[in-house]
Structures are given as structure tokens and as C-alpha cells.
């Protein structure tokens, strides 16, 4: 009934079909975590990088690997360690004796989907190597710029900062992640489903059952469609109010950047498309605001000492701002 009354002005049928397939493939391996899956699909469509945080053993790395299998593009993995050097990530120039000239050997960052496992185990020096590639999708080495072909996505995993042997990521780098997705322990029923699934597979690798359902060309087309999603002027004001409030809130030492405003805009449009709409609602903005903002703000020292979390402050800010109607 509803589709007949209002026909979408942007064709999202192929996109919604692919999303259904993605969900089916992910469900073969990951039990529950629908919220995380929604955010991952949104990030792909919004052309953003994702930081997945959670305690060890909650399928962070598995989810990232799963994502790489669903999309049939080049994939590489970098295990971040405390002694990792920027050249280990970006690549290095070596002398070719035959040609008597230096030759650039690209590092693992040269790929389409890059899984950076345990990203906060490498020091700031190595993290800085990711700044250019994450923001500009290119790497400049020895005066030569190497642009990356789309899609390019960094999926990083990390343990909470309180854990042993971890570094706090630089603010400049955190700001480059579209979402920080917090993965929590599964519910009791989900835990049973996980155990049952493992038992029934009898040692077979779950990832081998997953098929690629998305191509680079499709992603390009879907992203173009997402850009056409309509956004009412009042909702632009609503996004600006949320961001502005983070900068003036006494509970926060550092507010969100203009990059965060753009991140909310792009991801809200992508999430609206995921839900089959060619326009954004306040619901979409509220859904993406928390994962967009939680890693971009810094609590004031007193709030930190009181045990208040970034999530709580962001939720309170969003809840206090009037939804435009």
C-alpha cells in the first residue's frame, strides 16, 4: 500500500536487494549483532572507515574478515604491534641492482579493504602513517603520490583503552573513522546459538560458507544513489545543533569537529537508503549520531573521574535537543 502512494525518487531497489543478501551472508557466521551489521553496511555506503571496539573474543576480527569476503575486492590485513614502523604499513623504496634505480614496494595498506587488527597496540608514530590514506585515499612517498581506486575502507579493531599494552589513538586519527562501533557480549539466547552453531559445524570453517555478494562497481553505484537522498533543511539545522552542543557542553573538554557534521549527514543518508527511503528522518540522524560522535569527543577531567562515559553524554545531548517536526 505504502509503496504505491509514495514512489521513491531515487531508485534504491538494487541497493535494498543487495542489503538483503549481505544480511543473509553475515547471518551465516555472526549471531545477532544486528546493530553492528546495520552500521557496517551504512559505513560502506557512506564511504567511511570503521573502528570496532570490544573486549577480546566478541567477533570483532571475524566481522571485519566477513566484510571482506562479502565484497569481492582486494583485501589485506595488518596486525598492529608495538614495534611496527610506518614503512611496514605504507611500503618502502628499495634499490634495484639490475635497473640501478630505486623501486617502490607497496605495503599492505595498498588494497581495497584493509583490516587493521588491534590498531591501538602500535604507537602514535605508526598511527600517523594512516592519516593521509584514511582522509585522502592516497599515499605520498618520496614525493610521489599513489591514489587508491575506490572502494577504499579501513576496518580497524581495538581492545578498550583500559586493557594492558594499548595506546590511546591520536584525536586526528579517531576523527577519520566514520563510526566507532562498540561490540558487547551476546545475550544468553545468542550465546546458546553461537555454541550450537559451532557444535553443528563440527570444525568446519564458518567463513568458507560466505559468498561475495557485492562488487566494486555496485558499491560505486549505490554510493551515488545515497548522495541523491533528500534531506530537509530543518534536519541540517538539527545536525548542526547536535554538533554545536558538543562544543559548548560543560561535560566535554573537546567537542566534535565539522568533519563529524559531514559524517552524520553522509551516514544518515546512507542509513535512510538502507531502510529503503530516499529521504532522511530524525530517526536516522539519532541512530548514527552516537557511533559518529562517541570517539570524537573528550570528556572533561571531572566527568571522567566521576565515571561518566562518552556514550552517556552524547545520548543526553541528543535527547535534550528538540526533534524538528
Amino acid at each position, binding site marked *: 500500500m505504502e509503496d504505491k502512494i509514495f514512489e521513491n525518487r531515487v531508485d534504491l531497489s538494487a541497493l535494498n536487494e543487495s542489503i538483503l543478501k549481505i544480511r543473509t551472508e553475515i547471518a551465516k557466521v555472526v549471531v545477532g549483532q544486528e546493530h553492528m551489521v546495520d552500521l557496517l553496511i551504512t559505513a560502506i555506503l557512506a564511504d567511511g572507515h570503521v573502528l570496532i571496539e570490544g573486549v577480546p573474543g566478541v567477533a570483532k576480527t571475524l566481522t571485519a574478515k566477513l566484510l571482506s569476503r562479502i565484497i569481492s575486492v582486494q583485501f589485506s590485513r595488518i596486525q598492529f604491534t608495538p614495534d611496527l614502523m610506518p614503512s611496514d604499513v605504507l611500503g618502502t623504496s628499495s634499490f634495484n641492482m639490475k635497473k640501478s634505480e630505486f623501486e617502490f614496494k607497496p605495503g599492505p595498506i595498498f588494497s581495497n579493504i584493509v583490516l587493521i587488527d588491534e590498531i591501538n597496540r602500535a604507537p602514535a608514530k605508526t598511527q600517523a602513517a594512516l592519516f593521509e590514506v584514511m582522509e585522502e585515499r592516497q599515499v605520498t612517498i618520496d614525493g610521489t603520490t599513489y591514489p587508491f581506486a575506490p572502494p577504499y575502507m579501513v576496518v580497524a579493531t581495538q581492545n578498550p583503552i583500559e586493557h594492558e599494552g594499548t595506546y590511546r589513538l591520536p584525536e586526528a586519527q579517531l576523527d577519520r573513522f566514520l563510526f566507532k562501533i562498540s561490540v558487547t557480549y551476546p545475550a544468553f539466547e545468542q550465546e546458546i546459538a553461537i555454541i550450537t552453531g559451532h557444535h553443528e559445524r563440527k570444525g568446519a570453517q564458518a567463513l568458507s560458507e560466505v559468498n561475495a555478494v557485492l562488487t566494486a562497481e555496485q558499491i560505486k553505484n549505490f554510493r551515488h544513489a545515497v548522495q541523491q537522498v533528500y534531506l530537509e533543511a530543518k534536519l541540517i539545522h538539527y545536525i548542526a545543533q547536535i554538533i554545536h552542543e558538543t562544543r559548548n557542553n560543560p561535560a566535554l573538554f573537546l567537542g566534535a569537529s565539522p568533519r563529524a557534521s559531514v559524517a552524520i549527514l553522509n551516514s544518515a543518508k546512507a542509513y535512510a537508503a538502507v531502510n529503503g527511503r530516499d*529521504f532522511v528522518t530524525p530517526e536516522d540522524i539519532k541512530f548514527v549520531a552516537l557511533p559518529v560522535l562517541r570517539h570524537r569527543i573528550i570528556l572533561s577531567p571531572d566527568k571522567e573521574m566521576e565515571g561518566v562515559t562518552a556514550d552517556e553524554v552524547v545520548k543526553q545531548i541528543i535527547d535534550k535537543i528538540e526533534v524538528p517536526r
Partner: protein
Amino acid sequence: MSITRLLFVFVFLSITTASFSQEQEPVTPPQEIVDSLFSENETKDAQTEITPQRDSSTIEVRAIDQSKLNEMREDPAMDYGQDSPAIISLWDRIKMWLFNALRWLFSIGSSTNWGNIVVGVVIILILTYVIMRLLKIDALKMFYGRADKVTINHSIIEENIHEMDFEKLIQEALARKEYRLAIRLLFLHGLKLLADRHHITWEPGKTNHDYLNELTSKELKTGFNELNFYFEYAWYGNFVITDELYNRVTDIFNNWKINIR
């Protein structure tokens, strides 16, 4: 003793002995150099005795100018025995006051054991207070509950649904053929009715889906969901609303309104 150490001692001794023997050896200048220093007739005698000659030059005695000396004596800048004037800055005064206060405190404290404890406690309290003031920590909130309420000072509420005359506003919108606006007003009217009958708790930050989840009655939920659908497409989606569609939404609203008790 190992061979290495013995070897080291041997090398050390041989070096020191060699340098000692060099120091003992007399240095005799060549004869032709000695001869050139003396004249021909006193060559041999001069070698044995040299007598100093008397200096007959006149020495001019210079006296100090007495007036200049007196002038310098009277100059206070040249009087090094005088104490420099004491210049005590405000900071020095504060430090002195603090020092005296602490000395007084410790003199009390050192007289008895209890005094010691009291002094210790007072110092800890002062330090804690200073640190908490610097970090802007509210001690009461730390001990009596979490200060997780973040207050937002500015009010961004532009309209109050409880003060709006919906009948009049809808008629005005219809007269202007602004059906999008009319659907919006119809939806806001529905929210007001739900809030008045306490089916929902009106809060500016809640979305339509939050209100939908608050509804417990199935009839209310279904109708509200339908109204919300039209409102979202009309208002946020900017879809064209015809009078025919508006009438359809009005019918849904009127049928749904009956269930609000």
C-alpha cells in the same frame, strides 16, 4: 695473578721508569749558544758570576686627588658597608605569611600527638580541596550519586503543542492549499491528544518512533504508525500531497482519534 694483569703491571712500570729517567737527565745547552750570550772579554768570568746593575731612573710619585676621594666617600652608591633597602614583593609577603602560618600550625602540632594528627588532616583536606577546585570536581556528586545529568542551557523549543490552536491552524493551511503543513499539524494534534491523555510522555528530544514504542494500546499503535508514515513522507520527504491524499489522512486521523480515551 693472571698473565694479563702481570703484563699490564710490566707495561706500566716500564713506561713510568722511562719517563723518570728522562726527567733526571741534565740538559746542557750547546757551547756555541752559551758563547754568544757573553761579550768577548767577559766570557769566562760571566759564566761564573753575574752582578745586578742599579736602576737609576727617576720615579714620579702620583698623589690621589683629595677632592675626588672625598666626593666618592660621600657617594652612598660607593658605601658598600650600608645594607640595601629591603624590597618585599606581594608574593614574598604571601610566602612569609604562609610560612609563618605553617610554622605556627606545626608548633601546635608538634606539642602533642593529637595536634600532629589534626595538622596532618588539615593539610590533607586543604590539598584535596585545592586539587578538586582545580579539576572542577563536585565532591557531593562523587559521593551521593553520579553527576550524569548534563544540562543544556539554551532552549530550542520553537513551538509548544499545548498552546497551539490546531483547528484554526489546519483551516488556515487548507485555505492556502498547503497540504504538507496541514498533515504536519494533524500529526502534532495527535501527539498532543496522546500527551493529554498520558499515553505518551512529551519530551522534545523524543522521535516519533520513541512515542510509538511508548504506546501500549494496539489500536492506538496501529493508527499512530500509519499517521507517522504519512507525516514522515510529507514533512521530511517533501513529497507532493494532494487534497485527495490529505482527506485520506484526515479519515485515518478521525478514526484513530476515537480510540484515545
